[in-house]
Structures are given as structure tokens and as C-alpha cells.
């Protein structure tokens, strides 16, 4: 039992379960899943589908945060990626053709990769603080997206492209399979190679890593490139959903939701140890909360406050300090476990 409670994903996972339970109690239809034309439909399925852009962005954000960095430009990269893809489809003679769509996607991802590499260059080579380095693209990126679409909202009609966000593969949405694939790929690359461990080492102690011969520059650079490419995929899914390249609203504020999801999943903003499973849970919490607002019929004017209150609650539930406080107030027998060793450990000055 204590082993489960001590697991670092226990609190995020319980928050998710509580959130879903509250929804089901409020309205039993939340959990209802129906089958139509061999496809599954329902509020829970919608959450799996709609979480795709945030999931991809948050995955990249997890890697960047693990290196002690942050990437504010992901929303802007989404906008650029969507603008590039839709402009290519719009300009093509065969907007519904498979070749056109592949080219559109590849070019969009290549552009995203270049943007991610630019961020990584500023941070790892020039040593600019990550928040400032990525702020550059956050501001300039949307302008670039507007330039690509000549200041208009490019709308296209391309049935196959639309399938990316709205289509089904067997019984579940395509978008769901895309994020699952991304999670698996990132998980395998980070945990089956040594990249994850070296990333954590650089994030925890850059100087010790340097003296141990770790190529920290390359590792930090890789994280920003991954973040850029994943944001690019998110941009394609977003534009496929709307079928319009809207440079202002694509991925608007998504960087902040992604940071929130990463933190809810238990990865510290101080860098170091990261958890991909935690980020997945964090994203599902954020997305479920968005759905909850719709489902409970919270008025639009009140929804940001509602969202904020729930987030504060979830964060408090996870806080070790609140746990200690709870133990001392409710006098449980578990108080014998070491009380915050770090706070009491005083470095002995010589």
C-alpha cells in the first residue's frame, strides 16, 4: 500500500481519476461510449482525440525542461507548421492527393525542425537563457506564419488531410494513434538509449556532467529540436482539425498549458529527472478539465476561474508540504517517515 502511495505517479493519477469520477457523478453520460459505423464515440473518446496537440507539445516540453530549459515558442511553431502545410496544399493542383499531403507534412516538419534547431543554437551554443531565447520565436513565429499565409486565414478543402484530426483508424481516432506513437517513440529513444539518462545528468548537474565528458551541448540541442518537431506535428493536427491556417489562434497559450501538464506530471521545473508517463497523465488532466468545463456547462465568463481553482487544488494535493501538514493535522501514524531531510541538511561551511 505505502509503495503505491509513495510512487511518484500516485498523486497525478489519483487527480485524474477523481476528475473523471466527479464528471461521471455530475452527468452519467460522461462515461457513455457508443458505437457508430464501427467507430467509438463519447466524451472520453473526445478527450483522447483532442489531447493530441497538447500531448505532442508537452512531450517536447518535458525533454526541454529536463535540461533546465523552457520552450515558449511551441505555440508559434504550431502556427508556422500549420501555415506551411496548408499553404502548400492550397497552392497545389491536387489538394486531395496523397503525394501533395505527404510533401506538405514533410516540409512543415522540416521547417519546425529548423526552428527548433534555432532555439537549441541560441541556448546551447550562444548560452542565451532559454526563456529569452525561445521568446524570440514565440513573438516572431506568428508573424512568420502570417507572412506565409499573406496575412489571410488560408482555408483548404482536402478530405484526406482532414482525416488526420477527425478520422478513425479501426475504432479509435487517428489523432489518438499519432500521440500514442509519439509517446512510444520518445519513450524508446530516451529510455532505450542513454539519451534520457544523459539528459537528466546535464539537467541535474551541468558542471559534473561536463567534467564526466558528457556532450551537454549536443544533448540540450537535441531536446529543443525534438520540441520543435513535436510542435510541428501538433500544428499539423491542429490545422487539420480546423482546415484553416489561422496564425493568431493556432496553439495560442499552448506553451503554458504544456508547462502546466509537465509539472502536474511530476517533472520539476528545476530540471533533471523527468517522467514521460507523468506528462501523459498531466496532459490528460488538463484535457479532461477542459472537457469538464464544457460538460458541466460552466459559463464561458466563469470558466477560466473554474479552471484555475481546479489547477490550484490539484497542485496542492501533490505538494509534499501539504502532505506533511495534513499528517500533522490529522495525526496519522506515518509521521515517522523522515520529515523533509533537505530542509534540515545544512551544508557545513568550512
Amino acid at each position, binding site marked *: 500500500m505505502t509503495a503505491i502511495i509513495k510512487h511518484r505517479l500516485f498523486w497525478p493519477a489519483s487527480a485524474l481519476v477523481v476528475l473523471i469520477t466527479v464528471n461521471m457523478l455530475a452527468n452519467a453520460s460522461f462515461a457513455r461510449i457508443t458505437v457508430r459505423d464501427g467507430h467509438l464515440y463519447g466524451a472520453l473518446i473526445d478527450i483522447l482525440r483532442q489531447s493530441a496537440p497538447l500531448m505532442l507539445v508537452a512531450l517536447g516540453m518535458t525533454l526541454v525542461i529536463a535540461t533546465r530549459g523552457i520552450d515558449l515558442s511551441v505555440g508559434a511553431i504550431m502556427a508556422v507548421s500549420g501555415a506551411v502545410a496548408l499553404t502548400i496544399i492550397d497552392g497545389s493542383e491536387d489538394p486531395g492527393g496523397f503525394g501533395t499531403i505527404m510533401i506538405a507534412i514533410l516540409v512543415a516538419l522540416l521547417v519546425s525542425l529548423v526552428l527548433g534547431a534555432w532555439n537549441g543554437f541560441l541556448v546551447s551554443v550562444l548560452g542565451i537563457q532559454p526563456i529569452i531565447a525561445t521568446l524570440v520565436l514565440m513573438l516572431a513565429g506568428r508573424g512568420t506564419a502570417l507572412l506565409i499565409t499573406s496575412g489571410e486565414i488560408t482555408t483548404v478543402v482536402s478530405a484526406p488531410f482532414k482525416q488526420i484530426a477527425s478520422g478513425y483508424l479501426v475504432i479509435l481516432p487517428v489523432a489518438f494513434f499519432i500521440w500514442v506513437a509519439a509517446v512510444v517513440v520518445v519513450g524508446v529513444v530516451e529510455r532505450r538509449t542513454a539519451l534520457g539518462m544523459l539528459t537528466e545528468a546535464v539537467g541535474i548537474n551541468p558542471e559534473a556532467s561536463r567534467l564526466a*565528458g558528457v556532450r551537454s551541448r549536443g544533448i540540450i540541442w537535441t531536446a529543443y529540436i525534438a520540441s520543435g518537431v513535436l510542435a510541428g506535428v501538433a500544428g499539423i493536427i491542429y490545422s487539420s482539425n480546423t482546415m484553416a491556417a489561422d496564425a493568431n489562434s493556432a496553439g495560442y497559450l499552448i506553451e503554458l498549458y504544456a508547462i502546466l501538464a509537465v509539472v502536474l506530471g511530476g517533472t520539476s521545473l528545476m530540471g533533471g529527472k523527468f517522467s514521460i508517463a507523468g506528462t501523459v497523465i498531466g496532459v490528460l488532466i488538463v484535457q479532461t478539465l477542459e472537457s469538464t468545463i464544457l460538460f458541466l456547462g460552466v459559463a464561458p465568463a466563469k470558466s477560466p476561474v473554474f479552471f484555475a481553482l481546479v489547477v490550484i487544488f490539484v497542485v496542492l494535493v501533490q505538494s509534499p508540504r501539504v502532505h506533511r501538514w495534513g499528517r500533522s493535522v490529522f495525526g496519522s501514524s506515518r509521521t515517522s517517515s523522515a520529515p523533509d531531510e533537505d530542509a534540515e541538511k545544512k551544508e557545513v561551511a568550512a
Partner: protein
Amino acid sequence: MPADTDVPLIVEMRGITIRFPGVLALDNVDFSLRPGEIHSLMGENGAGKSTLIKALTGVYAIDSGSIMVSGEHQSFVTTADAQAAGISTVYQEINLCPNLSVGENVMLGHEKRGRFGIDWKSTFEEAEHHMASLGLDVDSRSILESHSIAIQQLIAISRAMVLDAKVLILDEPTSSLDRGEVEQLFGVIRSLRDRGVAILFVSHFLEQVYEISDRITVLRNGQLVGEHLVEELPRDALVAEMIGRELDDLTAISASAGREVDRTGTPVLRAAGLGKRGMLESADVSVYDGEVVGLAGLLGSGRTELVRLLYGADRPDTGEIDVAGVRQRVQSPRHAMARGMAFSSENRRAEGVVSDLTVAENMILGIQAQRGWLRRVRKSEQDAVVGEYMEALGVRPADPTMPAGNLSGGNQQKVLLARWLATAPELLILDEPTRGIDVGAKADIQRKVAELSAQGLSVIFISSELEEVLRIAQRVVVMRDRRSIGELESSKVNLDHLIDYIAHKEGSVLQ
């Protein structure tokens, strides 16, 4: 002009004891300061100098003992209390606001007020007046960080005078100054002494301590060793007091020092005239196959700086490095590793262990870094490496999945030793590998070094404990004031010779 002993004390600390978890940082220490004297506090790293200063300045609360300032009992809770009692400190790293003007820094909290709030004109004039009284001619409207460290230090002292300090504490003020700047600082310090200010001076530079001090107090391992007038304490006596002469049961390892080393071939590493501005003036060192070379010298003598330059952790400005007879430009730690070097820093926590990673991950970090991220160290291989070194070095607790940050200092050191031995280096550089660790772990590490060098590993071994250096190393390179000043064969000298050599400028004792 040494101070008169009959003058009433301005600071009188009696029986000061401070405990940190698991450590007695100060053990019943007495310390006193007289007005108009320059009093040096001496001791090696961990002796308790900084702790004593922090007790006097209200940073640390004392567990027992009493502090009297100007004849009144004081119990400082904050640094502001100490300042109010007339105690000011100028730290090594300047604690002023770099982006404010000089005048604002000097007068902060004591600005002149006019009818409409602060009267800046007279505030700046007042600041210049204070600085001029120390012979400092600086535009008080210029920005602080536009001045050199030396000038900033003098500005910090001016600020202390604005606070009407009766006691001025200077903690390593000269460590980043050149000779001319030191002279200027000393001039100011002497003029303050002549005005009756009591000055507590801390420096690792022996020459400077002897040049400026009237009185010296020596601490070792948190205890008071002695208080002396400077002319009654010859240098070798001071060094002996600082280092102590603890005899421990490690004689088994002493065979290492007597082992014959063949020095006819090409050295594994040879460096000549190595230097870097502000770190190291010039040092020569060479290491042969299977040889342990010790670096001896007091803290700040340039030992750490020298090995950092050898390993590429910092880049030298001058000098040359040959690795196995081939001229090399070592650009980075990675580069040095590729040439068969390994370096374990003296700063275990900040530059050694990656605290949140497990013991096993810390041990394989070096080999993993060498291979790059794509070629992961396989689980079976990791288990083999970890198993071997957990056993050979006796890491406790023997749990490789524990975060390395939770281990004790000695066990962290063993983990680092394992990390480097796993990379199969030809030259292992160990900077203070036994500092602050218990006797058992110390013996384990010394034994391992002796054993590996007998099998052909070359080692550069740095330690503040001279017995340890003499016991393990076949040859000792002596450093003083950022230079290598000579070499000794361990088998031909004893501790007294070595202390003599470190203490005396000419080192002529043996010739």
C-alpha cells in the same frame, strides 16, 4: 606596530561551540580581537574559520559560549545585529550591488536627507569624502561594476567605514588581486588599524599573512590550536599547527611511497610552464608509468588550478602539455578523457556526483559519456561494472539503485572513483579524494590507489594532509603561491622536511 596586550578587548568570544548535523564545526573555541590590531585567522579547509566568522557576524547561531563586543554581551540573531554592534565584513565575493553607482553603494541606508527626500548631491559628496579618507579617488556617480575587483573591495571597505565599524572582517580579500592591488589594499588596512579599527584578516597566502599581521590564531578541525604574536611564530611552526601531526594506522600503504618507479621512458604526461591569468602563474609536472605524484602545498597554492588545466576543465594561457610524448592542446574534459585522463574534482557535490541519479548511473556516467548516447551501456555490462566496484571499494549501503546524493561523503567519493576507474584511464587525477571522509573510507581509497599504481596506473594525488601524500606518492611536487617550486622524493624526506619546504621561500633546506 603590534598592538599592546593591555588594551581592553573589543571582541571576546569564549567557549564557542557550533554543531551541524553530524559534525562539530566549532568545539569550545576562544577568540579575541583588540582595537588597532590586524589579527589573522589561519587553518586549512574545514578548520572552522568561516564558521567562526559567521558566528561573529550573526549568520550562525552559537550552540554554547558567549560573545562580548565592546564589553557588552551580545547574542546576534541576524547580520544586522552584528552590524549595529560595529562589526562589518568584506567578503571574497563582493556583496555590493554591481549595477548601482559607487556612491549609492557606499551610502546605502545612510543617504543624506534634505527637504525633498534624499539629497543626492550631498550624499555623493559624503561618499567621496569617505573614500578619500582611505586614499581612494573614485567618481561616486560611476557604476560599481565598471571598476576592478580591487577597487570594488576598497569601496566595500569604505562602506564599512560609513557604518562606523569598529571591527572589520576581511575574508580572502586578496585572492583575486595582483601584487600592486594588494599593496594598495594593505596600505588602507594599515591606516584603518592606526585609527583603532580591529581587523580580522583571512588569507591563504602565507607571505601576505606575515607581511600584514600583528597576531595569528590557528584553528584545526574546529578547535583552537593557539594564539601567537606574529614574531613568536616561525613559518614552519605555523604550517605544522595548521596541518597537525596525526598518526593513523595506515602504515600498510606506506610501501607505496618506497616503490621504485622507472623514469627512463617517456612520461605519461608532462607539463611545463603551465599558467593561466588569475589562476596559476607557472607550474611544471611530469608523471611516469605506474607512478603516483603528489601535489603538496597549502590551499590556494595552485594545486587544484594546475590539475584543472591539465584536464582541460579550464584552458591554459601559457605552457605546454605532452601526453605520451606527443604535444597536445587539451581543450575540454572530453578531449582529455579521449587521451586517457580522468579527473575527480575536490568539489564532490558541485562537480562530482549527479545527486538525483542512482549510484549505478553515476558509476557508468563516464563510460556512457565516452560512448555517446546512442550506444547505451547494456544492463549486463552495467551490472558487471557496478558489482565489481561496489565490492572492490566497499560502497555502503551496497544498494546501486539509491540516489547518489543520499550517500555519505566517503561513499560518494568511492562512487566517483568507480566512475573514473571504469573508463580505464592511464592517468588518474584525484583532487582531495579523502577530504572530510571517515578513516575507514580513507584507508579504502588509499589502498586502492596504491594497488592500482603498482599495476601500472599513473596517478596525480592532491591532499592537504601531507602524511597522506608522503605515504602514497613516490614523488611530491611542492607548490606555493600559484607556482610549482620544486620536487622531492618521498623516500628521502620526512614530514618536517616537507613542511619546511612548503613554508620557506627558498626551500634550501635540502640542498
